[in-house]
C-alpha cells in the first residue's frame, strides 16, 4: 500500500517536473544542426554471422594479414564493409597495440604489470562483485599454469556469482533510480529476476534490449507485476513513470549513450540535438499509459489503431510530431508494425552508430572504472573517446560476435591494459584517459558489502520468497544505504566520514573483530599449530587478498608479542585479542576498501 502511494507520488513528482519543462522560459539556440551521415547501403559494422557457430572463446585463428587500423571504422561515416571476425586474443592484441602506439606518441610510460594477487582480487571484484576467499587466493597463487589468469575468468563467467553481479551491474545501468530513490526500490526484485534469466542464458545483448523495448506495458498489470515482483523488464518503463518522454530519455542514454535530456524542452545548447528530434524519438513510445492525453497523438477514448501511435504532441508548440529515428531516417511503416518493434529494429541494427559502441564503452567502464567515453553515457561531438580506434574495434567485434557480452568481457580482461598494476610509477600515468595505470576505484555498495561479508565470514541470509529483495534493516541493507553514492564514476567515489565511523566503531565491524563473535578470527585463532606469522597471513589473505609484506610482519608480529606479554602469557594464544586489532586495521585499510 505504501508502495502504491509512493509510486503515485513519484508520478505526481514527475508530472511536476514535466510541467517545469513545458514552461521553461528560455530557449537556447545552437549553431547548426549537424546531420548524421550514414551510408544506407553499407553496414557500419559487420552483419551478425548467420549461424551461431561463433566460438565463445578464442578458437578463431588470428588473421595477421590485416593491420589493426584497417578493421576499425574511424568515424561514424566510414563503415567497414568487410569486417573480419577476430578471436578474443587477437582483438585484445589489437587493442593493446593501439594503446601502445598512443602511449608512445604521447610519451606515456605505462605502469608495471599487475601482480597475480592484485589481478585476482581485481577480476573477482569486477566479475563476481566480491573479493576472493582465502582458499581461492591460495589456490590461485600456487597454480603453476601460465594460463591461470585466463582460466579464472572462465571459471568466474561460469559461476552464479557472475550472474548475480552482472544482474546488479545491469540493473544499476538500466534503472539507476531504483538504487537512489526509495520510491522506485520496489522495482528491483522483478527487474533483477528478469535480468538474471537473460544473463544466465547468455542472451545476446541486442536481444535483451529488444525484449525491454518491446515489452507491452499496461499500467494496471505493471503495478500488479511490481507488487508481486513478477519477472519482467517493465521496470525500465515503470521507473520512467510510463511516460513517452522519460522512456525516450532513458532509451537514448542507456542504449545509445546520447543525452537528450536537455533537448526535451529546448534545442541542446552544446550539442546537435534539436527539441524536435527529442519528440520524434518520444513518439515511438506514444502508446505508453503515462502519456499525457493532451500531448499524445492518439484519438481520445480509444486504444487507437497502429498508426495513431506513431506521433506525439510537442507540449511547447502543440505540434504533432511523427516518430522518426535520431539519425533522421523515417521508419518504413506497414499497417501492422508496432512503433516500439520498429524502434528496437533500428536501435539494434548493426548500422546504428551508437548502439554497439555504447555497450562496449559500458563494459570497458565496468573493468576500468571509467569509459573510453566518459561519462559512460555521454557520447557527443564535444566528448571524444579516449581511444576511438579501440572503441570502434571492440564495437565492431562485439557485433561480429553476435552481441555476445562475454566476448567483450573476455577481450577486455585479456588486454595488457587491464593487466597493469595500480602503483603509479610515472607522472604520465596520472591522466585517467591514458589508461596507463589501474586507477584506484571506489567500490559499489554491493561490491563493498559482499566483500566485507566474505572477509569476516558473515553468512548473508536471503529472503526465501524473494531472493532479489534486500531487507533494509539487515546489515546488507544498512550498508548499501550508507555507501550510496552519486559520483559520476568509481574513480570519483569518495569515502564519507560517516562510512569511516561505521567501519571503525559500528556494531558489524565490532563483532567481526571480537573473538567471541567473529567467524574469521575464530577460525584463525582456534586452528591449532598455526604460528602468529601464519595467522597474520590468513588475515591478510582474507582482506587484502595477498600475503603480508615483510614490513607488515615486522610491524604486526612485535605487536602481537607485546600484547601477549602485556597479558602475562607466554604462548601465542595470548595474542588473540591483538589479532582482532590487526583484523580491524586490515578491514579499515584503503587497500581493502578500494578496488585497485
Amino acid at each position, binding site marked *: 500500500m505504501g508502495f502504491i502511494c509512493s509510486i503515485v507520488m513519484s508520478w505526481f513528482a514527475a508530472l511536476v517536473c514535466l510541467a517545469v519543462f513545458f514552461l521553461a522560459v528560455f530557449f537556447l539556440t545552437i549553431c547548426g544542426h549537424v546531420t548524421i551521415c550514414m551510408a544506407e547501403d553499407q553496414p557500419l559494422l559487420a552483419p551478425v554471422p548467420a549461424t551461431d557457430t561463433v566460438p565463445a572463446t578464442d578458437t578463431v585463428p588470428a588473421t595477421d594479414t590485416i593491420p589493426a587500423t584497417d578493421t576499425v571504422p574511424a568515424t561514424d561515416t566510414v563503415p567497414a564493409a568487410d569486417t573480419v571476425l577476430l578471436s578474443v586474443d587477437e582483438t585484445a592484441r589489437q587493442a593493446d597495440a593501439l594503446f601502445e602506439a598512443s602511449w608512445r606518441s604521447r610519451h606515456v610510460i605505462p605502469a608495471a604489470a599487475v601482480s597475480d594477487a592484485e589481478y585476482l582480487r581485481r577480476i573477482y571484484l569486477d566479475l563476481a562483485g566480491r573479493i576472493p576467499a582465502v582458499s581461492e587466493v591460495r589456490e590461485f597463487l600456487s597454480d603453476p599454469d601460465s594460463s591461470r589468469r585466463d582460466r579464472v575468468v572462465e571459471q568466474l563467467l561460469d559461476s552464479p556469482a557472475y550472474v548475480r553481479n552482472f544482474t546488479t551491474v545491469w540493473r544499476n545501468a538500466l534503472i539507476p533510480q531504483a538504487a537512489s530513490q526509495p520510491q522506485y526500490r520496489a522495482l528491483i526484485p522483478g527487474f533483477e529476476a528478469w535480468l538474471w534469466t537473460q544473463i544466465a542464458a547468455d542472451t545476446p545483448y541486442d536481444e535483451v534490449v529488444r525484449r525491454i523495448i518491446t515489452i507491452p506495458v499496461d499500467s494496471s498489470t505493471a503495478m500488479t507485476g511490481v507488487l508481486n515482483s513478477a519477472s519482467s523488464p517493465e521496470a525500465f518503463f515503470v521507473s520512467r513513470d510510463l511516460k513517452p518522454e522519460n522512456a525516450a530519455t532513458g532509451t537514448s542514454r542507456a542504449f545509445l549513450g546520447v543525452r537528450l535530456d536537455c533537448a526535451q524542452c529546448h534545442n541542446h545548447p552544446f550539442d546537435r540535438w534539436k527539441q524536435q528530434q527529442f519528440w520524434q524519438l518520444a513518439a515511438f513510445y506514444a502508446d505508453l499509459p503515462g502519456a499525457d492525453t493532451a500531448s499524445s497523438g492518439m484519438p481520445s477514448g480509444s486504444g487507437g489503431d497502429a498508426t495513431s501511435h506513431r506521433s506525439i504532441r510537442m507540449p511547447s508548440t502543440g505540434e504533432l510530431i511523427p516518430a522518426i529515428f535520431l539519425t533522421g531516417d523515417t521508419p518504413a511503416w506497414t499497417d501492422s508494425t508496432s512503433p516500439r518493434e520498429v524502434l528496437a529494429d533500428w536501435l539494434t541494427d548493426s548500422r546504428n552508430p551508437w548502439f554497439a559502441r555504447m555497450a562496449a564503452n559500458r563494459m570497458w567502464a565496468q573493468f576500468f572504472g571509467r569509459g573510453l567515453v566518459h561519462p559512460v553515457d555521454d557520447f557527443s561531438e564535444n566528448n571524444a573517446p579516449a581511444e576511438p580506434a579501440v572503441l570502434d574495434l571492440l564495437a565492431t567485434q562485439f557485433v561480429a560476435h553476435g552481441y555476445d557480452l562475454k566476448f567483450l568481457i573476455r577481450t577486455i580482461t585479456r588486454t595488457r591494459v587491464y593487466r597493469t598494476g595500480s602503483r603509479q610509477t610515472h607522472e604520465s600515468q596520472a591522466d585517467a584517459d591514458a589508461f596507463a595505470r589501474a586507477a584506484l576505484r571506489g567500490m559499489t555498495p554491493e561490491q563493498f558489502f559482499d566483500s566485507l561479508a566474505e572477509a569476516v565470514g558473515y553468512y548473508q541470509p536471503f529472503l526465501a520468497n524473494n531472493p532479489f529483495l534486500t531487507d533494509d534493516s539487515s546489515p546488507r541493507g544498512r550498508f548499501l544505504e550508507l555507501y550510496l553514492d552519486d559520483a*559520476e564514476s568509481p574513480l570519483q567515489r569518495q569515502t564519507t566520514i560517516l562510512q*569511516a565511523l561505521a567501519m571503525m566503531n559500528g556494531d558489524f565491524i565490532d563483532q567481526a573483530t571480537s573473538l567471541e563473535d567473529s567467524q574469521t578470527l575464530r577460525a584463525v585463532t582456534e586452528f591449532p599449530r598455526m604460528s602468529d606469522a601464519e595467522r597474520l597471513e590468513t588475515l591478510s589473505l582474507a582482506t587484502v587478498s595477498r600475503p603480508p609484506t615483510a614490513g607488515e610482519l615486522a610491524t604486526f608480529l612485535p605487536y602481537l608479542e607485546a600484547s601477549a606479554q602485556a597479558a602475562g602469557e607466554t604462548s601465542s594464544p595470548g595474542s588473540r585479542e591483538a589479532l582482532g*586489532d590487526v583484523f580491524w586495521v586490515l578491514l579499515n*585499510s*584503503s587497500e581493502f576498501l578500494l578496488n585497485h
Partner: protein
Amino acid sequence: MDAVRIHRRLFGRYSGLSLLGASMSGWLPRLALQAESRGIRPARSCILLWMSGGPSQIDTFDPHEGHANGGPVKAIETSIPGIRIADSLPRTAQVMQHLAPIRTMSTKEGDHARATYYLRTGYLPQGPVQFPTLGSLLSHQLRQDECELPAFISVNPFRAFSPEAFGPGFLGPAWSPLVVADQRSSNTDISFEVRNLQTAPRLAAARIDDRIRLLNVLEQEFLAERPGIPGSSHRQSYAQAVRMMRSRDVGAFRLDDEPNALRDRYGRSPFGQACLLARRLVEKGVAFVEVALNGLENRGGAGWDSHTDNFQTVRDLCEVLDPAWATLMSDLQERGLLESTLVVWMGEFGRTPVINENAGRDHWPGSWSAVLGGGGIRTGQVCGRTSSDGMEIEESPVSVPNLMATICRAVGLDETSSNQSNIGRPIPLADHGAVPLQQLLT
C-alpha cells in the same frame, strides 16, 4: 568518551617509539601535539539556508499585493519601517533589522540542474572544471585548524538536481561536507546525532590508539603510490572521523542539551531543529553550515517547486521556515554570534509572477529574491526593485557572480583570490568581473 585521557595516554605510550616517526608523518591526527583549545571561533562563519526547488519571491520577500500577479498574499510591515514582506513570514518580519533582502536576483538559468549548479558554485557548468560548492569554497578559506569538527557540515541536502553542485570539486575530498540527516523516533524528538562516534565499550582507549597507529603505518605506502580521489578521500575522512571521535565538540550535535522552550521556538520540524544545530555548530567554530529546506513530510525533495497549488505550498513551507529562521537570527544575536555569522537564504531561482492555470508558479530566473543577513551585511534595507507586475527589474539587477563577491566580502574574503583548479587554471572565488554590492556591505 574521555577525549583528554586518550590524548595523554597516546602521548605517554608512544612518544618514544620509533614507529611513532611513521605515524607522526602520517595522515591521522597528531593528537599528542594538539593544543587543548576550546570554544574557537573563526573570524567568520556562514550559514546557508538552501531552498531547494526555487522559492516564490512574490509570496515571500517581494509581495505585489493589489496586482493580479500578487495572488491572495498580503504584504505586512516589518521591524524596519517601509520594508514590507509577505504575510507568510510574520516572525521573520520582526527580525528585518538583521536581514537585507535582494529583490533583483537575475540569471538566465531556468533549469533546476544548471541553476542549482550556478547558485551553489557561482559558476555555470563549463567543460572539465569541477567548481566547488559554496560551503567547500568558503570553509576552505575560513576554517581554523583548532576546530575539531569538520569545517563544512551539510544538513539534509537534496542533491538530485545536480549532485556535483554539492561537492568540493577541484578542492578535493578534504573539503567535502559532513552530511547529517535527521533521524527521528517521533515528531518531537528530532535528532542529528552522528552515529558510531563511540568506540565499542569492550575496547580500552589504548587499544583504539594502537589500532589507529597500526592503520597509519599500513596505509602509508599503499596510498602514497596510488594517487586518486578514492584514496585521498579515504585518508581525509578517516582523519576527520578520528578527530571527531576524540573531540568534546561533538556534543554540539546533542540538541537535548538545549532548553525545550528554545527548541520549541525554532519549531519542532527537521528544518527548525537543523537551524538550532547550525547555531550550535557555528558556536564551536564550524566555518560553514548548510541547512536545506526541501519538501515537507513525504512530499518529495524539491518542496519550493510550486508548479501547482503554489499558495498553499508556500504557506506550508513558510510555517516551517518562519519560526526557524527568525529564532536563528535572534538566537545568534543573543549569543554574540551574529556579527561574525553571515546568513544566506536562497534557492536556485524564483517563480513566474504570472499565476498559471493550476494556481501554480513556474520557473523564473529573471527577477527573484535572495536574502543576506547577519555579519558583514548592512542589514535593515532592501536591495533592488521590481516592476509593479514583478516581471521586470527597475533598479539594481544582481548577477550570481556579484552575489558571490558580496558573500565573500561579508565573511572577510577577497573574491578575486584564486584556487588552483583541476585543469591547472587558477579560479577566483567569484567569477572574473564580479563586483561586490557595496550598498549591502558594512
